[in-house]
């Protein structure tokens, strides 16, 4: 029992939880309004889109892959939602169409990754450009294909200024909530629980770790590598599309370039959460905690009067320092264990 507790305390996730609590206390000491629970919960709406994209990305990074196209899928989902709405479709049906587009975009990445040996970074780099370009060109394309939109100017009128005036019900997604818990946070928690169960409690989840450690071994042990990869990239597409929908509701406007700046933060969150970029390691809880840590950090810095220009410096610096520190601790521990083993073997002799 005690040994188990010690083992648990030594985990990365526990360290993150402690850091998160410390962070909230420090920020609260500087500015007491930060400790107001209602405020704290409400302020999460600022960064839920980061978490929605980072949580499924954790699964991909566990398979030793990467998906940088998520930031483009956010914009693609947002503009899809807006355009289907101005075409006269009910906003909530439009929402599901947007999510469907996100899943399809993810499946495209997944199928490409699974059926070739091309580096996932290259594939999703290509699709990052492609999806962003499609999102930009979609309004004009719909006009060219002869679809009819409300208003005389057609879809192209919405290309640069986006689509605003979305129904109140829809805008409530980001601005409403149950009690003190805003809907976006609720969506994040449900999505995290869903992914957590998939990753940690199912055979599918074990496959992800196995593929990340050794894809060849996975293939030889009859793991359905292809379908597993397609599914996991599709989940990432779904997460990014969800993020796009939440952002659309948050800004009450559908735009093709929503979320463009989030890439650095999303990957920082996943890596800070303990996922290993070389595959085989990572947890949903870690990513979730890291997401809250980075999100509150950003808000705390802004509240302390730090300009938003400095925030990427801190986030980027933090990413490097944390990873370097983690590597240092691992090497140190291994060296200590090695020396211990040497000592024991010498004593036996």
């Amino acid at each position, binding site marked *: 029992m005690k040994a188990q507790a010690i083992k648990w305390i030594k985990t990365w996730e526990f360290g993150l939880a402690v850091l998160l609590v410390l962070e909230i206390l420090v920020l609260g000491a500087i500015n007491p309004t930060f400790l107001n629970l209602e405020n704290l919960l409400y302020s999460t709406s600022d960064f839920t889109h980061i978490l929605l994209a980072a949580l499924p990305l954790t699964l991909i990074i566990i398979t030793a892959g990467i998906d940088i196209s998520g930031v483009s899928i956010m914009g693609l989902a947002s503009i899809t939602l807006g355009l289907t709405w101005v075409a006269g479709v009910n906003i909530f049906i439009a929402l599901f169409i947007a999510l469907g587009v996100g899943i399809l975009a993810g499946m495209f990445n997944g199928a490409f990754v699974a059926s070739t040996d091309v580096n996932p970074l290259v594939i999703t780099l290509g699709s990052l450009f492609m*999806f962003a370009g499609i999102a930009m060109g979609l309004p004009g394309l719909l006009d060219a294909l002869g679809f009819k939109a409300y208003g005389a100017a057609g879809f192209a009128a919405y290309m640069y200024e986006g689509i605003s005036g979305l129904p109140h019900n829809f805008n409530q997604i980001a601005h409403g909530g149950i009690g003190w818990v805003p809907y976006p946070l609720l969506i994040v928690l449900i999505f995290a629980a869903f992914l957590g169960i998939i990753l940690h409690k199912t055979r599918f989840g074990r496959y992800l770790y196995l593929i990340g450690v050794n894809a060849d071994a996975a293939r030889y042990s009859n793991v359905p590598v292809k379908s597993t990869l397609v599914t996991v990239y599709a989940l990432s597409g779904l997460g990014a599309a969800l993020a796009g929908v939440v952002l659309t509701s948050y800004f009450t406007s559908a735009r093709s370039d929503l979320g463009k700046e989030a890439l650095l933060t999303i990957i920082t969150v996943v890596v800070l959460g303990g996922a290993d970029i070389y595959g085989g390691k990572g947890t949903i809880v870690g990513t979730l905690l890291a997401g809250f840590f980075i999100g509150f950090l950003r808000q705390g810095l802004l509240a302390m009067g730090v300009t938003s220009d400095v925030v990427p410096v801190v986030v980027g610096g933090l990413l490097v320092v944390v990873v370097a520190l983690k590597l240092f601790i691992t090497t140190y521990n291994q060296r200590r264990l090695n020396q211990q083993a040497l000592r024991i073997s010498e004593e036996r002799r």
Partner: protein
Amino acid sequence: MSRIWRSRELLVFLLLIVLLLAVGLINPNFWRTRSLMHILNSSLILILVSIGEMFVILTRGIDVSVGAILGLSAVILGVALNAGVALPLAVLLALIVSVLAGMVNAVGVTFLRVPPIIMTLGTLGVYRGLMLIITGGSWIETIPTNIKFFANWHVLGVRFFIWVTLVIVILTTFLLRRFKKARYLYAVGDNEEGARLMDIPVKKTLFAAYTLAGLFAGIAAIIFVAQIGFVPMQAGNGQELRAIAADVLGGVNLAGGVGTPLSALVGAIFLTAVDSALVFLKVPGYWNNAVGGAILLAAVYLDYRVRMAVAAQQRQARAAVRKENNHLNPSTSEEQT
């Protein structure tokens, strides 16, 4: 000879010719020296950043901070010039900053052993932030005209910067072929453990690769400031992704050890030519990204299929030889298998 024919540089170069011919057929204005020179001139920045990126990719690394380094150096150059610093000194200052920025990446990757994508993603944020802090977020305009002069200076009828880039391409190609220490880049990328066993200074080689990536982004920044004449805050934004795309398109392998400056050159010109071609085809500019991305994906897919086909052919050839040996001399071949 067969190696040249099978090279990806040539494949992309032929594709480029086909693209230029096709666009020229539809819009003859495209086939004028002026518009072709224009494509070359507007691809210079991407060519230089891509060559810098190539050094890192050769070692099996990746540097996503080169765009931010470009931006940072451009800001330094702009601020220095506006403060009245003499042009050569300001250029030197910008180059020093870019080299230092590259060295920070190098230290992280070689000594702290942070994975390259994480190290450079972190510094991407840091350099972009520094750029905004230095300028307070506003564009640097009213840059003295003496630097803009170089962008329009023609030497022997060709722009000065085209000559500069050409010399750099030839020089780096030559060095990477003949200079032993430059060959280390390939050795480290192909097999790091093997390189170490052969007494190749792996850390120094990696250090040099990231520093060079910084330096080349700095050179690109100087051309950027001279060509544009002001420094917007988006300077270099996304340039790292375009550079990686150009390299991969030209045949630099992300798995390390494969690629030449010609790959970077051809890939960068191709990507820029696509943008110009779309203009001549009267396709709205916002399709550039979609087409560029699709071309990158198509190129890597085609390359994958070709590699698989070649591998299958070689397997079959080997099997045929073995069968023949079997037929001639069954006893020895059984021992072999």
